[in-house]
């Protein structure tokens, strides 16, 4: 395993401690519960926005805690939803008169932990709701599944809800906005290599030197199919097609386009994907009004990328454009 790691069991706590050390004054770290929160949260006049999920997706979600984004992140271990008492303790610490909104990606483990944590908090009179995110088109709704997975599109839900909460929206309004953004957001990812969880120490799956996994999950779950690796433009064509036809996005639509790196892919390659995606959309009469190229929701060190589209209207566009501050700043 070629990683910067000490004891793999301390991978998440040490990372969180690093984030806290790099953000004195603005972020607070509660080691007992993997909790990273804004130092000024909770505020009685603001809905507290919390995202929970497994770790290994950084900068999601621990590094997007900040003004106009999350009030707290409640991460579990690598690729594991947090234990329910982390959820409960986090909710308790973030309790605000205006309520707590828990953003949860649609996975069995996450939903169970957050449902249980929420019930425990509610039993103590805390106002708390859950909003589920499910933007992954790789998995079709079917009798087999519990619905689509939540992947990189959660960035847009966080951004919009975070902006709304900052502007004073109440809990119902935050939920309305979060649902609305989730409903117009679609993502699909591909993997060129497998990721290596620190505690496992070896790649999660085998992918041949000339293979690509289409529709991979952000935990290294297999996707739609394994294919022969083709050139960048052809990959974009296939992924974009699956994403565009799912909502569908139509000629005349304005969209936000995100090319999200999965952890091991350099940003140079992401711009090569961006170029073709932007041009393809233009050919179809779909206008990219906001662009996002970089790492937003990763899968440890996996080489790969996902493409996300968000259909914009004035309300969503304004919320995405609102200023915000997070740990993954450049300057």
């Amino acid at each position: 395993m070629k990683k910067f790691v000490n004891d793999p069991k301390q991978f998440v706590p040490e990372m969180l401690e690093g984030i806290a050390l790099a953000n004195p004054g603005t972020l607070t770290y509660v080691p007992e519960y993997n909790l990273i929160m804004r130092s000024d949260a909770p505020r009685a006049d603001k809905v507290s926005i919390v995202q929970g999920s497994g770790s290994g997706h950084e900068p999601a979600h621990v590094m997007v805690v900040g003004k106009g984004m999350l009030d707290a992140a409640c991460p579990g271990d690598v690729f594991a939803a947090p234990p329910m008492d982390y959820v409960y303790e986090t909710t308790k610490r973030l309790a605000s008169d205006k309520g707590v909104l828990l953003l949860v990606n649609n996975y069995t483990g996450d939903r169970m932990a957050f449902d249980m944590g929420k019930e425990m908090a509610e039993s103590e009179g805390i106002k708390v709701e859950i909003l589920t995110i499910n933007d992954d088109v790789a998995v079709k709704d079917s009798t087999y599944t519990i619905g689509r997975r939540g992947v990189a599109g959660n960035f847009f839900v966080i951004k919009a809800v975070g902006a709304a909460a900052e502007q004073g929206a109440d809990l119902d309004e935050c939920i309305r906005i979060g649902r609305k953004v989730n409903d117009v957001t679609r993502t699909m990812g591909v993997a060129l290599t497998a990721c290596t969880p620190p505690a496992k120490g070896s790649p999660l799956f085998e992918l041949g030197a000339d293979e690509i996994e289409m529709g991979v999950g952000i935990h290294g779950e297999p996707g739609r199919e394994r294919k022969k690796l083709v050139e960048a433009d052809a990959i974009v064509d296939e992924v974009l097609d699956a994403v565009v036809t799912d909502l569908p996005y139509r000629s005349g639509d304005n969209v936000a386009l995100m090319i999200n790196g999965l952890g091991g892919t350099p940003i140079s390659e992401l711009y090569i994907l961006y170029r073709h995606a932007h041009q393809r959309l233009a050919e179809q009469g779909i206008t990219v009004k906001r662009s996002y190229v970089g790492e937003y929701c990763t899968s440890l060190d996996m080489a790969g990328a996902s493409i996300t589209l968000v259909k914009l209207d004035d309300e969503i566009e304004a919320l995405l454009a609102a200023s915000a501050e997070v740990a993954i700043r450049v300057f």
Partner: protein
Amino acid sequence: MTDTQQQVDLVVRTIAQTAVDNETYFGDLDSVVGDGDFGYSLARGFEKVIEGWDGIDRANPGTFLKKVGMIVSSRIGGTSGPIWGTAFMKAGITAGTAQMLTGEDVVAMLRAATDGIKMRGQSDVGDKTLLDALIPMTDRIESELRSGTDPSGVLAAAAVAAREAAEATTDMVAKRGRASYTGERSRGSVDAGAMAVAVIVEHVNQAWPTEGVS
């Protein structure tokens, strides 16, 4: 400590030790169509059980099991924390305050545990989860008890039943959990949770004294 509590101690201790010892194996099973963390999650949670072993409330077997369930669900993340935690807690609740547990009590506790998992996971037999090992195993325990088999014999039969049932998950398509996202591609590999149950029951069977305790 009562004989019953000693037996419960032995069973839970063996479950915990088996989970810790098989971290890598269980993780590898979960890597095929899952995300590879099952072994890690289970090991970290049951490590905590072992760490706090002597201090766990042993007022009666039911209380002991509930406490174990709380440690497990507050320390294990992922799907397994709520699932395994619920199973122990439901079993403990069903045991109530009894100091002695009969074979029938054990079956009732196992039924409560699997019902709890079904409720928590909105899952059932045939979804390719640990239920597909646990439920056939419980059925077998029940029928062996009815035929008057002695405890050691019942356990041996349970181990065989769990192993067979776990292996039979290979042909199933996952309908719950992370593996379900892969649809048909989940066919052809064994379910990690079901196989963990089989391995654990085999170890409990081996650890069980062939003579002595009732």
